[in-house]
């Protein structure tokens, strides 16, 4: 990673080297090998946020880093199959909308915005409604963070 050639400034789009799968066997192997684990850790961090440090944002960043490692190793073109960059921003908007929707459903049930104990899930005590409310909200956060970070990476890379 450390040796970047000074590239031609007129080349506005991405470097060809990142478009195709990487030549370096080490990068290829480590990145492709580690990426699934990072994704898994990301999911763990997200779901375990209620009991230990972690939560939506951290999980989201880890997931994004996992996808970005795939981008690095597979090259931009191939990794589109895993995560097409046309979708990223829209998916993150959907994540934020999910957050708002959770909040608004409480309003519809007659409470204040984001008041989880009024969520329309039957058969749960208010404390557990809050528990799941937080979880739902964190899903939204995770989706947004994951996809946005990938989107920012894509944009910075210029493809």
């Amino acid at each position, binding site marked *: 990673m450390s040796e970047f050639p000074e590239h031609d400034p007129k080349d*506005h789009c991405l470097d060809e080297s990142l478009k195709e799968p990487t030549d370096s066997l080490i990068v290829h192997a480590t990145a492709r090998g580690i990426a699934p684990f990072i994704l898994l850790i990301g999911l763990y961090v997200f779901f375990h946020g209620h009991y230990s440090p972690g939560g939506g944002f951290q999980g989201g960043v880890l997931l994004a880093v996992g996808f970005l490692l795939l981008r690095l190793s597979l090259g931009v073109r191939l990794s589109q199959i895993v995560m097409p960059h046309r979708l990223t921003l829209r998916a993150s908007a959907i994540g934020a909308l999910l957050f708002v929707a959770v909040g608004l459903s409480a309003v519809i049930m007659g409470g204040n915005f984001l008041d989880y104990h009024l969520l329309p899930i039957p058969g749960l005590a208010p404390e557990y409604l809050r528990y799941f409310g937080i979880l739902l909200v964190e899903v939204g956060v995770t989706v947004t963070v994951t996809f946005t970070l990938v989107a920012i990476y894509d944009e910075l890379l210029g493809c």
Partner: protein
Amino acid sequence: MKALRYIVLVAFFGVLMTAVVKLPPRGDVSSPVHRRTNAAGTPVAGTYYIQNAYKDAKTPNMVTVILGDYRSLDTLGETIVVLIGGIACFYILNVRRRKP
């Protein structure tokens, strides 16, 4: 001009120092932030969260409860900030490539 900048920096540091040494020292348990009620008699949020987070949401990690429930509007804002960052990058950088 350059000298002026350094003067500003040093002066700023000096001003910060005068106030910083009047703060409650690091780790002071009796700092206003850690009390149960503040000077005006209203409950201090941090202490309330410690004592009631589990009761209110059955979640042991207090930070998660605060993030997701007590101060969820901040988290919504945070999410939106993230989204805005993505859109802004898209807006700034996504131009049609000029043909050489």
